[in-house]
C-alpha cells in the first residue's frame, strides 16, 4: 500500500489507522488529520519548531532498514518528527502516557496553581492538559520557586513569571512574526526569566498576540485582567474597525460592556493575528463620553439635547431650505470611511436622492474626483488579494509606511520576504519595512511620479524577458525574447533615467538596480499608499503604475491602499463625487469661501482630518448649516447645528469591505443602551422626513439592496457572504486568469477635473512634443530646502498618521494611550545641528498658517531638508500648519522659547537651548 501512495504523499499508521499525508508533515499534524489530538504546549503551527516541553511525546516506530532486525519504537516528540513511509505511531502507548504524566508533574512543581485568581482559568491549555493527562497528585512537598508576579512587560501586557512554563511561544512569535525580538529569556534553567533589555517596556505594535499564544496564564492583558471569566462572556463575530486591513475579530462582552477583542482566524486576511490598536482600542464603545442623544444648536449658540423627532425635523427643514434657496450644489456630504457598507450606501442614496447634490466624498482632504484613479485603466483600486503577496517574487511599497498604515498586512509582506520575495521600499522617510528591504529609495517628498518614470525608463533601457520555462540544461532552447516595450518608450517620450534621478533625488544606479530586480522577479506586486490616491497628481501616478505593471508582465500588479476602517467600502458604495461634483477637500475649500452653504458630515472630524485646519474652521463657521452623525462631541461637532448620536461599528450589524475589496460580515457585540442609532437608519429617517423614503427598517435590507444594486458587487448577486468574506473580483467567473493585453497608458495626467492646483506650479517644457501620449513635464514639487541646501532655512514637511495616535477611538483606552508617542518633530542629524536642536529639546514648527511646539527627535529617518510630524497626535494637530492651496509644505523649525521651562526635566536640555537658541 505504501507503493500506491501518490508521489509526495506518505502513508503511515497512527493508532492502528492508516493515514496518508503530504511528505514533510509533522506527526502531530498527521494525527490531527486523522482526528487524534495529541496534547501540546510549545508546538504552534504558525511558529518554528522548539521541542521545548515534551508534552507531545508519542511512541513512534520505524520499519527497519532491509535486512536489519526490527528496533523497538521510541518515545519521540511528535511536534518535531516528520512522517516517513511505514512509520507506526501510537499516541496512547502506555510509555507515552507515563511520559506526559511526568511532564505535567514537572511543569506543576513550580507552577503556583493560582487558577482561582488567574485570567486564563477556563481557557487554559495547561489546566486542560493537566486535567486530561496529568497525575492526580503531586509528590512535590518542597517550597515552590517564587518569581515576578503582575510584572508589566509594557502598558498592555502583564507577566506572571511563576506561571510561565517556558514554552518559548511568546519569544518565538516576537522574533519570527513581526521580527521584533524584544522579549527573551534571561538566565537559564531554574532561573529562566522572561524579560526585555533593562526591563524597558515592549515597543512592538503586535505584542497583544503573545497573550493569545501563551498556553497558560503567564501573559495577561492589562485591559482585561480580573474583569471577567470566559463563561461570563457573550461573543459576537465581527471585523476590526480600526484600519482598512479588516482583521476578523470576536467581540467578547460582559453584561453588555466590551470586555476584550480576540482575533478570529481568517487565513485570507489576518490569519490569527491582530495589531494592538485593533485588540485594545475598544473602550470608546462603552465610554461615558459617548454622545447619548441628538444635539441641536439653540438660539443661544449652545448645543443642547434634543429628541430624535426634533433633531430629524429640524435637519430636514433646514436642509430643504438650503436646497431651495441656493440649489442642491450648495450642499456637500463628507464621510463614510469609518462607517459600515450599509451606512455608506444609505448615505449615498440620501445624498443623491434627497439632497440631490453631486458633492459627495468619503476621502478627507481629497483633491481629485476620481476615488479610484485606476478605474480609467479598467482596474480596481486593489487588484490582488492579501494572500497573493506570499507568491510574489518582488514587492514594491511606494509612498506607504505599511507597518503603521496596514499593520497586519505588513506581517504577511514580511512573511513573503522571509520566503524570498525581494522588497523594494520607496518612501521619503525611512520606515520599519526598510529593515528588510533590498532596495531603499529615499525620494524627494512628492516625487513619486519621477521615481516611477525613472523605473519605466530603466526598464525601457533593458527590457525584461518574456516569461518562459528556463532553457534546459546544456544551453538547449533559446532564451525567451525580451518584452516589446516600444509603446512604453513612446509614452515616456524620451525621459531618461538620469532625468528622473535628477527630479526624484534617487540615484540613477539605484533606479536601474530596482528595475533589474523587478524585471527578474516572478509576479511582482506593487502597493501604493492611501494618501497617493487623494493627491492632485493621482491620475498621473495611476498611469505610471499601470505602465510599470504592464512592463513587468501584468497591469493588475498595481494596488492602492485606502484609509479608514471602510474606505474601500465607502468608495464602492458610491460615496464619491458625481460628474462635476466636488471632492472632500474642495467641499471644505468652497465652504470656507461661503460657496457651499450646508455641510453634512458623517463620522468625519474635518477639523482634524482636512489638510488645512484654519480653512476647515472657516468652512464650519461660514456654512449656514452643519449636520453631523457622530459618536462623540468632537471639536468639529462643537461647530455643528445638529448632531445625531450614532452607533459605533462594534455595535452594528452589517458588512465592511477591506482594502483588498473583501466583503465581510460583522455582528453586533454590544447594544447601544442610549439613544444612538445606526447611521443607515439616521439617513433613512432623515430622507423620509424630506419626502424621499429609502424604505429601510433593518440593516439586512440595506445589505441586500447594496449587493444587488452596486455594480462593484454584481458578481456577488444571490450569494451569501461566507464567514471568510468574499471578494467580488475573485468571485467573478468570467474573470480571465490571463494578464490583460498590454495597453500603455498615456503618461500625461489629464487636466485636473476638479480644478485643484496640480503639484507643479509651472510645468517645464515637454519633451517629444507632438507625440501621442507624450511624457509630461517633470512634476517637480517646489523644493526650496533641497534646492537652497543647508542654510536655506525651510524644511519640507512630511506628515501621515502612525498607527497609534491620541484619536477619539484610542483615548478612552488609557493603557494604549500610554503607547502613543508624545507629539514629535523628526529631524535629520545635519538639519538638527544646523538649527541648533538636540534630541529631546522642544522646537517650534511653523508656517504662515500657524505653529506647533513638539519634542525633537533627531535620527537618520528623514533625509536632509525634510522633517516629519505625525498627523494624528498632539493638540493642535499638525494640520494647523498646512495650506490647502499649496500641496507641498515648507516649514520653519526653531528652538522653542518655552522649551527652557518645559524641558527642564530633560537632562542637558535647558542649558543647551539657552546657549544655542537663536
Amino acid at each position, binding site marked *: 500500500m505504501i507503493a500506491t501512495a501518490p508521489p509526495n504523499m506518505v502513508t503511515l499508521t497512527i493508532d492502528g489507522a492508516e493515514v496518508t499525508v503530504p511528505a514533510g508533515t509533522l506527526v502531530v499534524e498527521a494525527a490531527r488529520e486523522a482526528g487524534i489530538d495529541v496534547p501540546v504546549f510549545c508546538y504552534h503551527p504558525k511558529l518554528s519548531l522548539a521541542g521545548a516541553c515534551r508534552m507531545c511525546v508519542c511512541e513512534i516506530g520505524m520499519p527497519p532498514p532491509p535486512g536489519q532486525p526490527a528496533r523497538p519504537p521510541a518515545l519521540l516528540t511528535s511536534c518535531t518528527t516528520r512522517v516517513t513511509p511505514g512509520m507506526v505511531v501510537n499516541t496512547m502507548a502506555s510509555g507515552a502516557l507515563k511520559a506526559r504524566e511526568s511532564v505535567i508533574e514537572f511543569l506543576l512543581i513550580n507552577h503556583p496553581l493560582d487558577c482561582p485568581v488567574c485570567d486564563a482559568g477556563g481557557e487554559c491549555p495547561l489546566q486542560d492538559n493537566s486535567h486530561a493527562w496529568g497525575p492526580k497528585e503531586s509528590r512535590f512537598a518542597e517550597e515552590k520557586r517564587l518569581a515576578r508576579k503582575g510584572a508589566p512587560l509594557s502598558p498592555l501586557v502583564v507577566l506572571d513569571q511563576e506561571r510561565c512554563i517556558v514554552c518559548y511561544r511568546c519569544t518565538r512569535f516576537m522574533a519570527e512574526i513581526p521580527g521584533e525580538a524584544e522579549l527573551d*529569556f534571561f*538566565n*537559564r534553567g531554574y532561573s529562566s526569566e522572561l524579560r526585555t*533589555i533593562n526591563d524597558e517596556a515592549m515597543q512592538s505594535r503586535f505584542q497583544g498576540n503573545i497573550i493569545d499564544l501563551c498556553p497558560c496564564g503567564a501573559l495577561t492583558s492589562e485591559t482585561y485582567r480580573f474583569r471577567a471569566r470566559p463563561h461570563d462572556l457573550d461573543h459576537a463575530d465581527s471585523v476590526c474597525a480600526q484600519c482598512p486591513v479588516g482583521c476578523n475579530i470576536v467581540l467578547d462582552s460582559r453584561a453588555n460592556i466590551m470586555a476584550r477583542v480576540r482575533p478570529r482566524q481568517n487565513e485570507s486576511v489576518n490569519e490569527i493575528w491582530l495589531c494592538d490598536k485593533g485588540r485594545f482600542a475598544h473602550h470608546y464603545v462603552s465610554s461615558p463620553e459617548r454622545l447619548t442623544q441628538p444635539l441641536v444648536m439653540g438660539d443661544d449658540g449652545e448645543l443642547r439635547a434634543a429628541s430624535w423627532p426634533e433633531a430629524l425635523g429640524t435637519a430636514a427643514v433646514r436642509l430643504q431650505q438650503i436646497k431651495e434657496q441656493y440649489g442642491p450644489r450648495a450642499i456637500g456630504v463628507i464621510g463614510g470611511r469609518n462607517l459600515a457598507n450599509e451606512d455608506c450606501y444609505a448615505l449615498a442614496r440620501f445624498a443623491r436622492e434627497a439632497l440631490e447634490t453631486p458633492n459627495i466624498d468619503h476621502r478627507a482632504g481629497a483633491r481629485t474626483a476620481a476615488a479610484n484613479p485606476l478605474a480609467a485603466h479598467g482596474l480596481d483600486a486593489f487588484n490582488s488579494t492579501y494572500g497573493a503577496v506570499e507568491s510574489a517574487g518582488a514587492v514594491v511599497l511606494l509612498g506607504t509606511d505599511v507597518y503603521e498604515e496596514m499593520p497586519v498586512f505588513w506581517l504577511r509582506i514580511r512573511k513573503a520576504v522571509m520566503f524570498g520575495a525581494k522588497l523594494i521600499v520607496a518612501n521619503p522617510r525611512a520606515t520599519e519595512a526598510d529593515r528588510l528591504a533590498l532596495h531603499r529609495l529615499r525620494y524627494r517628498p512628492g516625487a513619486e511620479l519621477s521615481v516611477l518614470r525613472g523605473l519605466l525608463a530603466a526598464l525601457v533601457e533593458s527590457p525584461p524577458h518574456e516569461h518562459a520555462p528556463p532553457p534546459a540544461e546544456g544551453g538547449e532552447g533559446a532564451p525567451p525574447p525580451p518584452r516589446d516595450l516600444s509603446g512604453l518608450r513612446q509614452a515616456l517620450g524620451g525621459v531618461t533615467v538620469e532625468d528622473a534621478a535628477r527630479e526624484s533625488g534617487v540615484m540613477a544606479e539605484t533606479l536601474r538596480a530596482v528595475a533589474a530586480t523587478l524585471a527578474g522577479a516572478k509576479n511582482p506586486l506593487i502597493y501604493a499608499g492611501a494618501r497617493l490616491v487623494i493627491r492632485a497628481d493621482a491620475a498621473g501616478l495611476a498611469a505610471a503604475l499601470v505602465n510599470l505593471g504592464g512592463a513587468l508582465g501584468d497591469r493588475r500588479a498595481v494596488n492602492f491602499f485606502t484609509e479608514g476602517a471602510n474606505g474601500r467600502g465607502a468608495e464602492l458604495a458610491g460615496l464619491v463625487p458625481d460628474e462635476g461634483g466636488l471632492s472632500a477637500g474642495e467641499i471644505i475649500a468652497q465652504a470656507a469661501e461661503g460657496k457651499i452653504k450646508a455641510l453634512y458630515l458623517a463620522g468625519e472630524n474635518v477639523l482634524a482630518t482636512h489638510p488645512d485646519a484654519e480653512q476647515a474652521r472657516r468652512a464650519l463657521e461660514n456654512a449656514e448649516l452643519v449636520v453631523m452623525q457622530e459618536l462623540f462631541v468632537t471639536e468639529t461637532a462643537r461647530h455643528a447645528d445638529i448632531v445625531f448620536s450614532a452607533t459605533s461599528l462594534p455595535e452594528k450589524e452589517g458588512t465592511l469591505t477591506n482594502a483588498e475589496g473583501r466583503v465581510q460580515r460583522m455582528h453586533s457585540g454590544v447594544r447601544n443602551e442610549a439613544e444612538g442609532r445606526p447611521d443607515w437608519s439616521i439617513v433613512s429617517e432623515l430622507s423620509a422626513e424630506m419626502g424621499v423614503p429609502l424604505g429601510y427598517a433593518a440593516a439586512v435590507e440595506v445589505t441586500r439592496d447594496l449587493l444587488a444594486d452596486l455594480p462593484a458587487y454584481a458578481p456577488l448577486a444571490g450569494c451569501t457572504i461566507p464567514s471568510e468574506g468574499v471578494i467580488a473580483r475573485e468571485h467573478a467567473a468570467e474573470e480571465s486568469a490571463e494578464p490583460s493585453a498590454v495597453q500603455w497608458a498615456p503618461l500625461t495626467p489629464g487636466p485636473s477635473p476638479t480644478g485643484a492646483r496640480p503639484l507643479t506650479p509651472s510645468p517645464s517644457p515637454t519633451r517629444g512634443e507632438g507625440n501621442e501620449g507624450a511624457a509630461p513635464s517633470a512634476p517637480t514639487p517646489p523644493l526650496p530646502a533641497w534646492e537652497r541646501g543647508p542654510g536655506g532655512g525651510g524644511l519640507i514637511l512630511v506628515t501621515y498618521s502612525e498607527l497609534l495616535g491620541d484619536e477619539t477611538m484610542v483615548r478612552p483606552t488609557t493603557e494604549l494611550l500610554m503607547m502613543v508617542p508624545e507629539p514629535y518633530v523628526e529631524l535629520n542629524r545635519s538639519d538638527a545641528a544646523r538649527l541648533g536642536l538636540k534630541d529631546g529639546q522642544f522646537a517650534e514648527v511653523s508656517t504662515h498658517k500657524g505653529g506647533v511646539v513638539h519634542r525633537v527627535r533627531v535620527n537618520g529617518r528623514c533625509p536632509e531638508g525634510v522633517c516629519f510630524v505625525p498627523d494624528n497626535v498632539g493638540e493642535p494637530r499638525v494640520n494647523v500648519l498646512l495650506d490647502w492651496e499649496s500641496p507641498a509644505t515648507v516649514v520653519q523649525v526653531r528652538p522653542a522659547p518655552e522649551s527652557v521651562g518645559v524641558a527642564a526635566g530633560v537632562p542637558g536640555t535647558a542649558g543647551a537651548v539657552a546657549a544655542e537658541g537663536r
Partner: protein
Amino acid sequence: MPLSHELKDRITKDYFLRYATKRAALMPALWMAQQEHGWLSRETVEEVAELLDMHPTDVAAVASFYVMFNHRPVGKKIVEVCENPSCVINGATETLHRICERLGIPAGAHHGGATTADGEFTVRPTECVAACDKAPVIQVNSRYYGPVPPDKVDEFLADMEKFNVEGLPAANDLEGRAKHLRREVR
C-alpha cells in the same frame, strides 16, 4: 566607550565569513567585547546588536545565559572560589566566607559576585573548574591557585599582592586587554 575598529573588523571580515548567519558570530563577538571592556555594558550590548543585526534584548538574553560574561564592571582581579562538592567538602564555603570578610565584601554576595570598593577584587563562587586535586581551589583571572583551605586565606591574600597574572591582563586593564586582543588577532 565604543568597540574598537579592530574588533569590528575581525567580526565582519573574519567571523561573518565562517558562519551562515551574522547571528552565529554572537558568542565570539561578546567574548571579544568583554576582553576589550572588561564587562558587557548596555552600550556594548547595543553595539554588538547593531553589528550583528540583532535586537539588543536578544543579545542581552544570550549573554545572561553564561556566568563568564560580566554584566557589571569587575575588579582588576577576579577571584572565583569553587563551590562544587570536592571543594566544599574541603572547606570552600568557609574559604569564600573568609575572603569576603577580609576584603570587606558582604558575605553571601553570590551569583554575579561583588567587587571591593577600590576596584581591586571581584569575588564570586564558581562551578567545578576541573581542578579537584587542588580542592578547595580558587581561580584568579582564570589561573588556578590552591589548595586554599580556610586557614590559608591570609597567606593567599598576601600572595595575591604579587600574584603573577600571566596571560590574561587584569580584567579592567582595558589597554592591556586591547593589546592582548591585537596579539590574538595576528
